């Protein structure tokens, strides 16, 4: 980590003593219990941990979708707690691309229109070109007019990634993006993320699968709302290699 830190002076995200508690009746759940993380431009971070450990809660705070109960969060050097609803909407629109486990595409709306949506809210003029370029980047240039129910889970998630990419965000946040997908499709999604990261886009994703975590450059493990481990990935898995293997196996099965 110190190796990364030395490369970049200013972190892109800086969380200090972030806490989030939910009151359920007379019970208080501390979903996050004092988290400190710095993430620098160009990083590819996996947030890992068992179910209920607070991963989603953390991602929502990083994604400016939810506010922490206390603590400081600097995004690109700006304190998020001081932003109003309109500034938060603008940050979500321009600086962050969020990918959900359940895709969260608008039903009965074509892939292209889904990808254009953030550009519409960002009042971008060139949204058709940008949307088409983003869909081509995730390999769906030939599915522009397909509705979500006409696409496979993996394809829907790629539309969601294209939507997250469309407005050139600083960072892509993905909460269990492969959680609803079969292994081949998961691998395809990880390949896209690795390519994007190679192009310089910062990515933070949540996963509870160690295999998926191995595709990233750094893993942060949390448990019961606290940071447990923060380590660089050794023997990083490249999705492109895995996919070649998987396809060979697939071909063997079918020729045999």
């Amino acid at each position, binding site marked *: 980590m110190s190796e990364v830190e030395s490369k970049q002076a200013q972190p892109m995200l800086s969380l200090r003593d972030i806490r989030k508690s939910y009151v359920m009746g007379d019970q208080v759940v501390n979903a996050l219990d004092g988290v400190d993380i710095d993430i620098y431009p160009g990083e590819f971070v996996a947030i890992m941990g068992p179910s209920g450990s607070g991963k989603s809660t953390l991602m929502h705070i990083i994604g400016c979708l939810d506010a922490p109960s206390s603590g400081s969060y600097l995004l690109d050097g700006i304190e998020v707690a001081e932003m109003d609803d309109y500034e938060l*909407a*603008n940050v*979500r629109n*321009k600086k962050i691309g969020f990918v959900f486990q359940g895709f*969260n595409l608008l039903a009965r709306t074509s892939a292209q229109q889904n990808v254009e949506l953030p550009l519409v*809210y960002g009042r971008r003029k060139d949204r058709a070109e940008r949307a088409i370029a983003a869909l081509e980047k995730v390999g769906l240039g030939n599915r522009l007019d397909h509705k979500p129910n006409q696409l496979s889970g993996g394809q829907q998630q790629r539309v969601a990634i294209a939507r997250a990419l469309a407005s050139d965000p600083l960072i892509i946040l993905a909460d269990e993006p492969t959680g609803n997908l079969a292994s081949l499709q998961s691998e395809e999604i990880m390949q896209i993320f690795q390519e994007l990261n190679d192009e310089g886009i910062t990515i933070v994703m949540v996963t509870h699968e160690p295999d998926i975590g191995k595709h990233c450059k750094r893993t942060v493990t949390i448990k019961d709302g606290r940071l447990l481990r923060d380590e660089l990935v050794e023997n990083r898995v490249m999705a492109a290699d895995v996919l070649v293997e998987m396809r060979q196996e697939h071909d063997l099965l079918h020729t045999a």
Partner: protein
Amino acid sequence: MNIFECMRVAIRGLISNKMRTMLTMLGIIIGVAVTILVVAIGEGASARVQQTVADLGTNLLTIWNGPPSMHIAPAAALAASSGTSATSSNGVPVPPQAPNRLTLQQAEFIQQNFKQTVAAVSPIIRGNVQIRMGGTNATTNLQGVETTYPFVNNASVELGSFFTQSDVDGNAKVCVVGETVVNNMTGSPYTNVLGRSIYINKQEFKILGVLTPKGTGAWGQDQDDVILCPITTAMHRILHRNLTVDFMGVRCTSVKMMPLATQQIASYLRVEHHLQPPFPQNDDFEIHSATEILQRQQSITGTMTTLLSIVAVISLVVGGIGIMNIMLVSVTERTREIGIRKAIGATPRDILLQFLIESSTISLLGGIIGIALGVTGAVILAKVGGWNVIVDPSSVVAALVVSAGVGVFFGIYPASKAAGLHPIEALRFE
């Protein structure tokens, strides 16, 4: 997101839910349709009355039988008097009548003695009669009149001539017919019927002339469905009501003389009918001027407009509440969608606008459908019912503005509810 895109999204949503959309719009549709239709009828009626008054001239007075309490409107009085004669000839007990009736002698007296104020008097007796010509039968309105009729009532004959004083003196069986009668009897309004015979209640009359068409009257009646004959003939040979008349038209020498003429005629009739004060409560006659009819019609229109406005407001409010209800359902159904939109950068104002545009699109569409129905109804009334209706463009514009306004007003609460949703809670909503 711009307005047109919001509208497109809204309309797409509405089309995918046709039945619900229709039911939601119903209140607005009814409110707007009724408003458009009734305003069109009101405008048409008042234009017609103004036209009638202009046709008759403003210096015309009419004198009617009966105390004021018996009269709702002159038209109602006419219906009552013709109904009375019908029942009496059937031997059914006659309902109580006004004690004194206007008579021919009184008409003659007014004509002769108030020369300074009165130019001419046209007493009229009327009743429904059976007519036959060739093999064709019909009923029509027979009016027994004096030779003063054309002058007093701004009427004229288009073909042939009016009957003369000697026809009146001799109870002659001659008549002048309206164009509708010609049409009903011969199948065409242009048939030459001069000199031909027509049977009125089985008695043969000779047709002397055809009246210049007058069209539809102030109360929607066909003014050309009429036969005029000498008043004496009508009294003695057809209607058998000796010397009493139904009403008189009085053409004054000028508009300025009308108050004096009214006063002179009233004083004369009070003496003649042996009436006791107080007046005008104890009068058994009524004197109206054409301008009074105009005023009366305007006050009826005013009352109608008030009632209509209440109906319209109620149905628009009901419609608006329906829209609010459906928008609340829509916000709940689309909570996840709202969450998604917020997660990718929609501001509260974007969401607010989206739902406001949606609600006003519903009500605007309802308004447009309502206008279409109202105008169609007006056209049908005009074509089929022969009503005079005028669809005022400003009422159409007002209906559009009001219906859009209803959508905005009743959309504010659901839309601000949507705009205030928390993104994560909205996304978690099932």
